[in-house]
């Protein structure tokens, strides 16, 4: 069933109408199928829009109008050639309605027994399982299992850990000294807030269904596994172990692939992503470029960073292009072009003017190298392959000869 395209199941998936197994198979297919993923994004927008449809209030006079119709027998209409047959039928039906109700009405008025019913929970919660220690939901300690409702906090102390099942789409492991809150639980949006501490997420859903808000950025899952840590000042550190994560705050966005990491700072947002196997001077320089308040320090650090950059660090250089200005941007462009030549038709001017289409085209030509793929990306891969010391065995095998 799921070896073929799954476009017909998209709404059912969004509404939780598929079984757990079907949902998992759906997600696995959609992650690997561009066609279905494109359609999924479209239908998901449709679902999000339809969710905004408000229920309207009936006018107050409606009951009195209905009662009037019930109580007032209306004269039978005079037959006229102008009356079409549907109108005659409708009028007859109304008369029958009124007469029938009058008959019912005079049969007596039994009292209405009413029954109290238990309150219905409208905020389905997420299952929480204690791993060790005594995690708390609100003020309640979890002995084995618990449930986290929308708006509730889950907190672990220095000796406790817990796991949260994110609906049907994945799970999150909560490390010691962590505080998280469930913000939204909807088919198209599963959102946690990580106030402090560390969590590891494994999500097998299609992209952009799972979000984590931190004090300095929002992590948006693009089909992945990752660890996210927030310190007491609200700064965070993201490390992606599979797939991709997008970190964003307002108009600043960083796309982080597996093997890469990204820092965020309150008031600034996400820094520039980098591969964890980059040299220490490169990483230290990047931190200054991203967050140092002194422009001259940033400029000097940029020189160090460019000297240290390898082909694989094109991830960082590509993200830096819109974040530096003037001669610094020219330097970043020249280094990036030397490491990974831009696709045919790309002009220096278009890149320096940050033409969106041009930058996207260049990124596409590099992406497969960032994630360790590379079929058909021979040129880029040969450049990556020169960094023999930074490629894993698997990556070396995959690189074109």
């Amino acid at each position, binding site marked *: 069933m799921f070896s073929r395209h799954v476009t017909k199941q998209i*709404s059912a998936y969004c509404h939780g109408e598929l079984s757990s197994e079907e949902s998992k198979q759906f997600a696995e297919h959609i992650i690997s199928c561009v066609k279905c993923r494109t359609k999924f994004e479209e239908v998901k927008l*449709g679902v999000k*829009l339809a969710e905004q449809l408000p*229920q309207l209030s009936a006018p107050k006079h409606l009951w009195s*109008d*209905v009662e009037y119709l019930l109580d007032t027998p209306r004269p039978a209409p005079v037959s006229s050639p102008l009356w079409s047959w549907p109108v005659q039928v409708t009028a007859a039906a*109304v008369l029958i309605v009124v007469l029938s109700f009058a008959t*019912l009405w005079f049969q007596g008025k039994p009292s*209405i027994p009413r029954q109290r019913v238990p309150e219905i929970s409208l905020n389905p919660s997420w299952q929480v399982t204690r791993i060790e220690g005594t995690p708390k939901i609100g003020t309640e300690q979890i002995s084995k299992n618990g449930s986290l409702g929308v708006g509730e906090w889950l907190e672990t102390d220095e000796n406790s850990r817990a796991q949260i099942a994110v609906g049907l789409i994945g799970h999150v492991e909560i490390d010691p000294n962590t505080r998280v809150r469930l913000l939204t639980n909807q088919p198209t949006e599963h959102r946690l807030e990580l106030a402090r501490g560390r969590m590891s997420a494994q999500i097998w859903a299609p992209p952009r269904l799972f979000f984590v808000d931190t004090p300095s950025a929002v992590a948006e899952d693009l089909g992945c596994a990752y660890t996210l840590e927030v310190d007491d000042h609200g700064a965070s550190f993201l490390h992606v172990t599979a797939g991709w994560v997008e970190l964003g705050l307002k108009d600043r966005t960083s796309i982080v692939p597996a093997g890469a990491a990204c820092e965020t700072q309150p008031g600034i947002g996400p820094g520039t992503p980098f591969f964890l196997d980059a040299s220490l001077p490169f990483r230290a320089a990047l931190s200054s470029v991203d967050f140092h308040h002194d422009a001259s320090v940033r400029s000097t650090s940029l020189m160090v960073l460019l000297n240290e950059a390898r082909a694989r660090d094109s991830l960082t250089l590509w993200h830096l292009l819109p974040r530096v200005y003037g001669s610094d941007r020219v330097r970043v462009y020249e280094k990036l072009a030397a490491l990974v030549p831009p696709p045919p038709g790309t002009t220096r001017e278009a890149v320096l003017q940050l033409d969106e289409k041009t930058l996207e085209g260049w990124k596409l030509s590099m992406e497969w190298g960032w994630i360790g793929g590379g079929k058909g990306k021979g040129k880029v891969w040969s450049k990556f392959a020169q960094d023999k010391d930074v490629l894993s065995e698997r990556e070396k095998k995959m690189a074109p000869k």
Partner: protein
Amino acid sequence: MERHARMAEQLIDGRVIEACQQGDREAFHILFETYKDKVFSIAVYSSGGDRDVADDVTQQIFLKLFTAIRQFRGDSEFTTWLYRLVVNACLDERRRRRRLLPWGETTAMKNPSEKKPQEKQFARLEVAEAVREAIGELKPKFRLPILLKYIEGLSYEEIANVMGCSKGTVASRLNRGHSQLAKRLSHFNNPAAWGE
């Protein structure tokens, strides 16, 4: 609010329906109060946003309900039976209006609220208003499953029972309805448009 509505629905048990079948006006009133907003909402969205038409349709639906409730034997859920009445009444009204409209005249959605909300500057309200209009432009076979899903909160199986079709057909129509909404309102595919 939604919780209260759901609790009220729970109050409509077999005994209330039995009292209605015996002509108890108070029981009818409870039934009316429980479902009036949902029935009216579907009528508004199905009549192109014309509240006057929706008023008439809602009245007719409740008159029909009060008359026909004696025939309700409990073979299906009461809500399934009710929403079948609603869907049929909305489709009948649409057919009637199409016969009366001159050639070429459309039934584009009018603004269902007479006064635009003062808070229209808020992005979410703008989205809601745009969705109302776009819903009015969908074909009934795509619009009605969306209304039953989002206004009534029915499952696919319940929608299938109301519309007399299979669950697969419901899934397919919802899919196409969602796609059409997304295409008509593609400019909302941007967080800024939602005030985010």
